[in-house]
């Protein structure tokens, strides 16, 4: 592992923060304090591995709803996240307009995405094209689930990127489920990475529970993209450790044994073990980090709870760019 120890620790911390915040969201949901949560638990390695491979805040991100760890890693604060969950005005994704986890973080070059899956994929291609036309040296990281790769929208996005040779890294977080459907109900191939050969882009499948493996694969793709080598496809294989969302009941379509089995390869545990083996992390340091993170999460919840809701009339704007000033004035 050629990554500096402090970077490895930083990656681990990002995973743990995402996990603790995510767990807290489930509690908030049980407490009736939020109406909806869609979870990234089980995806932390895939996300942190990918996002640490780009220049955070400089490169662009076109994410999907599970990417809590990515958003935290590029600088969304926990309080901002919780405000989004609660539909508070301070929600940086949309001022309370979008459902929770429909990201956007302008200051960090994270574009706004919607719920219809794979719609953000062609946007990544377009950003890549713009980067190429302007002669900039940025790259774009974009993510979807494996189910979303069944959409023609995703196919066209990758194909355009391949033909136009633009700097985009397409990461697919294959968590073995699209709500209730397994990958064999989505595709007649064994791995999402096989789609690369039909599109003429380099494709690779990595263990998505190993943050460093994901990092290495993404780093290579990012470097290639930045050097003008065009797009890549990376499948990170992991497991959705929670129901699809707080509205789902996964007991109708998968066994408890299956879920338990996958807890053994919980990406946070895997990373913890790796760092312990490399003597980068001790049990004590871990406990301290965890306590600190938990305090940070509680503070975020406290702040978010105290934050104001938007006024009803804020919903009137901004339909058009000309109204952005109006919108700003109304919640100033």
């Amino acid at each position, binding site marked *: 592992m050629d990554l500096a120890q402090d970077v490895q620790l930083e990656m681990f911390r990002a995973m743990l923060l995402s996990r603790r915040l995510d767990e807290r969201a489930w509690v908030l949901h049980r407490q009736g304090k939020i*109406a*909806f949560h869609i979870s990234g638990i089980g995806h932390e390695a895939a996300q942190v591995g990918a996002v640490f491979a780009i220049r955070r805040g400089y490169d662009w991100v076109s994410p999907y709803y599970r990417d809590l760890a990515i958003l935290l890693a590029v600088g969304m604060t926990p309080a901002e996240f919780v405000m989004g969950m609660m*539909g*508070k*005005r301070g*929600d940086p994704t*949309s*001022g*309370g*307009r*979008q*459902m*929770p986890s*429909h990201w956007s973080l302008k200051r960090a070059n994270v574009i706004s995405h*919607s*719920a*219809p*899956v794979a719609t953000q994929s062609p946007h990544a291609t377009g950003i890549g094209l713009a980067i190429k036309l302007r002669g900039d040296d940025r790259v774009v990281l974009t993510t979807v689930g494996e*189910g*979303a790769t*069944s*959409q*023609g*929208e995703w196919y066209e996005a990758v194909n355009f990127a391949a033909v136009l040779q633009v700097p985009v890294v397409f990461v697919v977080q294959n968590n073995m489920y*699209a*709500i*209730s*459907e397994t990958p064999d*109900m*989505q*595709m007649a191939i064994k791995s999402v990475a096989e789609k690369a050969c039909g599109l003429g882009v380099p494709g690779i499948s990595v263990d998505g529970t190993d943050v460093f493996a994901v990092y290495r694969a993404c780093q290579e793709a990012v470097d290639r993209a930045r050097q003008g080598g065009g797009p890549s496809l990376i499948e990170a294989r992991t497991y959705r450790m929670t129901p699809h969302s707080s*509205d*789902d009941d996964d007991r*109708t*379509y998968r066994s408890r044994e299956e879920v338990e089995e996958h807890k053994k390869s919980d990406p946070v545990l895997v990373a913890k073990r790796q760092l312990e083996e490399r003597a980068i992390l001790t049990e004590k340091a871990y406990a301290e980090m965890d306590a600190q993170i938990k305090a940070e999460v509680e503070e975020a919840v406290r702040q978010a709870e105290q934050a104001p*809701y*938007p*006024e*009803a*009339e*804020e*919903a*009137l704007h901004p*339909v058009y760019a000309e109204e952005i000033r109006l919108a700003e004035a109304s919640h100033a």
Partner: protein
Amino acid sequence: MPEMTLIEAIRQGMDEELERDKDVFIIGEDVGKRGGVFRATMGLFEKYGPQRVIDSPLAELGIVGTGIGAALYGMRPICEIQFADFIYPAFNQIVNEAAKMCYRSNGDWTVPMTIRAPYGGGIGGGLYHSQSVEASFTHIPGLKVVVPSNPRDAKGLLKSAVRDPNPVLYFEPKKGYRLIKGEVPEGEYTVPIGPAQVSRPGKDLSVFAYGMMHYYTLQAAEKVAAEGIDAEVVDLRTLYPVDRETILASVRKTGKALIVHEDNLTGGYGAEVAATIAEWGFQDLDAPVRRLAAPDVPGVPFSHPMQDWFMPNPDKIAAAIRDLASF
């Protein structure tokens, strides 16, 4: 007559049609073991098996396009779109293909297909789990568009849709899935696609609505009745083709018209109802044709204060009725 919820009536309608005709099958995302994300198909996979209740890949165009092909062969597919907000990837197949097939082939090929989709807001779904999409389809000759507002119609219209030789879009007011309850006749019956229905006769003004807004309109009508305003309520039910006769007959009687929908105002379905009245009911009118609809913003915001601002509700409808009645 047994009472049931809107979604139970829809499920029962599908169940009976699957039972009746082996050419009927369901295709969509998570419709199998999961029974649909709203549980509309619950139990059907277990009862009819994976050949009749098919979990498809996550692609709406594929679902509808595959449905069209199967319909051309003579099957009767019921395509489920998980949320109406996700119907747009299939727009080309619905509008350019299903709708135009009969006409373009001079009647050689028809598409007997039902597309079901839950629609509507007020459920904390934000911009992409709340949309009303009917106006994108009530402009397309070759399609039929229905929206039930109560369990009886829901079951009866669903059965008609499945048996219809044309593509039928069947939009389900999802906020009413469990909220709206009502009696459903025992035994076999259908509700015809085509006619609107006067659901509350009245003499002072006509209120036209459908789906959840019809449910609210009935409540609003009761409110204003106590104040001495006798509103006629018309459940439009079949939005396309437009039942101009029922609309105009009501206006002939009352002289005033209010149209209510939760879709955006401009270019919404209410525009056609208003235009119909302005063109063919002009001489019956003694007041402007009014529309109460969602404001012209791109979607229903998630946060509650903004969602409430967006959505029409019984109070807003009652206010609009009062206002028009006093014209």
